[in-house]
């Protein structure tokens, strides 16, 4: 589909000033949306402007956003991983089984992260060594990973996690700032540096823009992709530790449908689904937007499934608006 899109792209005579470019950037537009939702929410519900309520609201998106950072890198490189939610389920199941066997908190965390890495390595192997299209491969591994959880657990659930394990999902670092929120901020900084200030980040953009050219400029495309899948698996493992700790139990249906919300978050954050462009800042703001929307609607007693309508509309309209705007601009010229 990129073929037809490319032919219509025009190179402007002037790029505009630095400020005008910044003001018309996706991130600033999204930030405006976030502020608007924030203001609307605080008028719509008297319970919205409360530090503890807002702190609770962050749990809506922190776990998803952690994965969204890694997913953003993957999407920028032109790949996708739809198996992330299934990795959460499998990692959580493994931790649950280990907890029943009496393994302590450090061991559980290691198992969670290890399973995440192993799943990521499996995806990476299929995509970068066997050179398979990631969208179908990860649909397959999505069924496989969650399927293993179903085989292990069936209709049962794991509980009885050690008390100290609860810290990751329920603990607070100071005042209203939860462990998850602090981790989310730290990871955002790490990923922003990785993508925007390292060689590796540059290589990701190059691969997403022109894989062919990337090969000719000596980038080991397969290795970069493999690392990205590994990273995505690791983040899914971390998210699994947080989610399992927060819920205190594991069912095979844990985090069902999250892959779509995570991809929505990434795309809403201005990352091109065709690869090659996007920023971590955009994803961070998108995470806040989605968290604020779902939390605000929740305060207004809107059921979860109706919220998903808003998320879907948000996804399509935020992508459609710049396209429509560009059309109108082209027509008036």
């Amino acid at each position, binding site marked *: *589909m*990129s*073929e*037809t*899109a490319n032919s219509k792209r025009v190179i402007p005579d002037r790029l505009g000033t630095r400020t005008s470019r910044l003001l018309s950037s996706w991130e600033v537009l999204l930030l405006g949306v976030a502020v608007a939702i924030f203001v609307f929410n605080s008028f719509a519900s008297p319970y919205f402007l409360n530090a503890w309520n807002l702190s609770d609201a962050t749990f809506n998106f922190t776990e998803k956003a952690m994965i969204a950072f890694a997913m953003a890198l993957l999407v920028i490189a*032109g*790949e*996708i991983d739809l198996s992330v939610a299934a990795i959460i389920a499998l990692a959580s199941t493994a931790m649950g089984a280990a907890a029943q066997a009496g393994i302590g908190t450090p061991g559980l965390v290691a198992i969670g992260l290890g399973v995440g890495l192993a799943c990521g390595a499996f995806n990476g192997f*299929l995509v970068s060594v*066997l*050179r*398979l*299209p*990631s*969208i*179908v*491969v990860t*649909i*397959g*591994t*999505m*069924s*496989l*990973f*969650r*399927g*293993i959880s*179903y*085989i292990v*657990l*069936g*209709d049962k659930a794991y509980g009885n996690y050690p008390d100290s394990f609860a810290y990751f999902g329920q603990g607070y670092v100071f005042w209203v700032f939860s462990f998850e929120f602090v981790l989310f901020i730290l990871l955002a900084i790490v990923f922003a540096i990785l993508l925007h200030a390292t060689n590796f980040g540059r290589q990701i953009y190059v691969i997403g823009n022109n*894989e*062919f050219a990337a*090969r000719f400029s000596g980038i080991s*495309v397969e290795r970069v992709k493999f690392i990205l899948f590994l990273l995505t698996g690791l983040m899914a493992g971390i998210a699994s530790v947080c989610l399992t700790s927060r819920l205190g139990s594991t069912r*095979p249906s844990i985090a069902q449908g999250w892959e*779509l919300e995570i*991809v*929505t978050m990434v*795309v809403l954050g201005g990352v091109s*689904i*065709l*690869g090659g462009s996007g920023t971590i800042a955009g994803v961070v703001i998108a995470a806040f937007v989605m968290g604020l929307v779902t939390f605000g609607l929740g305060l207004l007693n809107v*059921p979860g*499934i*109706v*919220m*998903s*309508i808003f*998320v*879907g*509309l948000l*996804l*399509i309209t935020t*992508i*459609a608006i710049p*396209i*429509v705007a560009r059309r109108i601009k082209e027509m008036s010229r």
Partner: protein
Amino acid sequence: MTNLLKNRELLLIVIIGLMVIGFSTRAQGFAAPGNLANIFNDTSILIILALGQMTVILTKSIDLSVAANLAFTGMAVALTNAPYPDPPLAALIVMAIGIGAFLGAINGFLVWALQIPPIVVTLGTLTIYRGMAFVLSGGGWVNAHQMTAQFLNIPRTQLLGLPVLSWIAIAIVLGAWFVLTRLPFGRAAYASGGNPTAAVYAGIDIGWTRFIAFVLSGALAGLCGYLWVSRYAVAYVDIAVGFELDTVAACVIGGISIAGGIGSVAGAVLGALFLGVIKNALPVIGISPFAQLAISGIVIVLAVVFNARAERKAGRIILRDRAAPEASA
């Protein structure tokens, strides 16, 4: 290439045949004609949806909203049938197809006119359509006793030894074969997926072709909405959750290239039957139904590995690396 494709379908027939024989050694009567007809009937809805999905995939797109479309349309016809039992069933079926086609047209329009990648569009409409099904029903169920006897019975009426549901599937298989191999639209669909640039130069409107593919997929999903609700005699918001992945899986197993332009109707049907046989065999041979998800996962991964081997064209390799970047969406 045609030889390879022929091999793929033959291979699938052989594998399905071997599976049936293998399962019948474990469970008496698995290979009996009556049971095979049951399996076919059970897989009918998947076959119909897979054909719609295939048409979309051929044009280098993907429709992840089929199951949500099915849930919405099924809920709409059930809610119409419950308080108004009088209108003929034909009107309801037309309504189901119409609603489905309209929802498909929304997908198609967004892909065609706004050029938003299909995976993003249908990911969005997937949540929207299912959310609308909730809004429509208020989260309630429509149960068998609220539906008219005619509404429930038509698809299961026996006709020449097979239920009407099976005949509908057979009719749609033949229809899809005709549309994709004998009509200009079919050519256009293969061309706009196989080589979009060449298709444009050949005077094919790719956007329009994709639009029609989405409308067809939506219309079939709408029809399946009625069939599903009638077959399981219940309508609720979560019917067919995740079924869109089964339709993609059926296509992938059937040798339809996710990159567009390659695939046959027979492949999609056999891919669906492959999943159907496994699904029906698990309880019979005493494997927990919970294992089904993992098994279809393994099957999908293996099928993709297999497809990639079949599609690899020697002439396209530049240097040692596969240069042509497959569109990931």
